[in-house]
């Protein structure tokens, strides 16, 4: 089994996800099944190939630094679960 209970917890901690107990067991089984399937790709020789990120050869796109969209930020706070004037509200991060 590639993904043990322990490595599952490590990944879950990294991606900030909580799970119900029954969800965990099902998912560990599912993930291992998928990883096993994915590994069937290893029979293909890819030694001389470069990894591809995008199908077009992307280059940096530059433009003149002209201010625009001055109002783009407006209304964004309205979707926050909790906000105060122009700030998002989060629980305290630093403790005594």
């Amino acid at each position: 089994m590639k993904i043990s209970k322990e490595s599952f917890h490590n990944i879950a901690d990294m991606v900030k996800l909580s799970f119900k107990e029954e969800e965990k067991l099902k998912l560990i089984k599912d993930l291992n099944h998928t990883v096993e399937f994915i590994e069937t790709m290893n029979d293909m020789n890819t030694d001389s190939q470069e990894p591809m990120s995008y199908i077009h050869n992307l280059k940096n796109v530059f433009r003149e630094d002209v201010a625009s969209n001055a109002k783009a930020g407006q209304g964004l706070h309205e979707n926050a679960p909790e906000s105060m004037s122009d700030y998002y509200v989060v629980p305290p991060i630093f403790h005594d």
Partner: protein
Amino acid sequence: MKEITAMSAMTVAEKIKAKELSVQEVVEAQLKAIKLREPLYNSYITITENEAKEQAIKVQGQIDNGELKDSPLAGVPVAIKDNICTRGIKTTCASKMLADFVPAYDATVTERLKKSGAILIGKVNLDEFAMGGTTKTSYFGETKNPWNRDHTPGGSSGGSSAAVAAEEAFISLGSDTGGSIRQPAAYCGLVGFKPTYGTVSRYGLIPLASSLDQIGPLGRNISDCASILELISGYDPKDSTSIKQGRYNYRSALVDDVKNMKIGVPKLYLDEDLDEDIRSCFLGALKTFEDMGAKVELFDLDEIRHSVQAYYVISCAEASSNLSRYDGVRYGHRTGDYDGLDELYKKSRGEGFGYEVKRRIMLGAYMLSSDKYEAYYNKARRIRTIISKTYDEAFNKYDILLSPESPNTAPLLSDDYSSSKNKQKSEILNVSVNLAGLPAVSIPCGKDRKGLPIGLQLIGKKFGEKALIQAAYSFEQTRPYERPGTLVN
């Protein structure tokens, strides 16, 4: 006169232009059909009745002034998949996470449609965050197939396909990461068009896998799809992956002529375990193209055989990164009970995402972890290079490629589709196209013995949309659009 909502988008637009119909009349007829059929199919998450009525008055004024005389779809109601941002209108991604999210801006495609006088009639259902092929993972309940309500309309753009097939919209927009436009179009007897990566701006499309996602139309014929594609295509400075091209006069390719067109048929697809009805329909379609003067040839495309594996790795890796933005702070669901910031993140995300979304985030993060990165993520990206080159070589020989869109027709909603073998097979036919960034269209080519539609996939070379449109249009002349026989009036 034929029922208004049963007309094609282009026909309605022409009648509006000719003053045979008013925009208000068309919008009222559309809303009436939605109210009548929506309880049966659940295509929509949000119906924008008031906005559509207001827009109808405005657009009628613009048409009367002559402002929209060059716009092919002025006054036509359009449904938009609910992962595409619409200013002031809820955009939920069919997730509890974004159930109350109201974007402060329009996606570029939304903006372009509004400018061209199309009427937004509502936001349509999908699998949660576009992850799935059935709409069954939607937080707002599954959508039903208008051809048979016991079956899925496909997915993830299942609301987009059901709405158009049920005549609850003339045309719709979907998004396609691994077949999510083409497969639902096939299951609902429609045309579904996935353009070349970079053709349509992704600005305002809530991302699943950024290097694979593309927005495209679902319609009742290729002419409607070509028209709307013309409106939404084009370079956008807000999307750094959008491509500068010349004119997008796709309608000029609506020509009934495939004489001497070179068509390749990958043997790999024929070797697949296809339903018997699909195989015979597919072979029938090949014969039709031959009869019309095209040169059809079988060839070997074995190098794409690991497309699904590579797709799983790349799409989940990108998704896990993209979905890290949902933190319960800036927008989206926030848990009611937490102790400290870390728990706020974990519980908000744990409650806000469904099982399939969590599965993909976990898988993606695993593949991206430092000791797995080379073995999985880079391996998959190297295979992607091979797939892309293999297709490029094929297009040195052929103008377009043909395959069945799916090895089966729409499965029953009661099937456990997530674990079925068919899902994997269906993905082989679809995902390699996204990995290579190619354009592809699914068009109806018959029905199985249960009366469910069968789709034919046409794949083109990069920016080869016009060849696809011409081939699809020619085929369509031999097989006019058929509506589901079960629609209530």
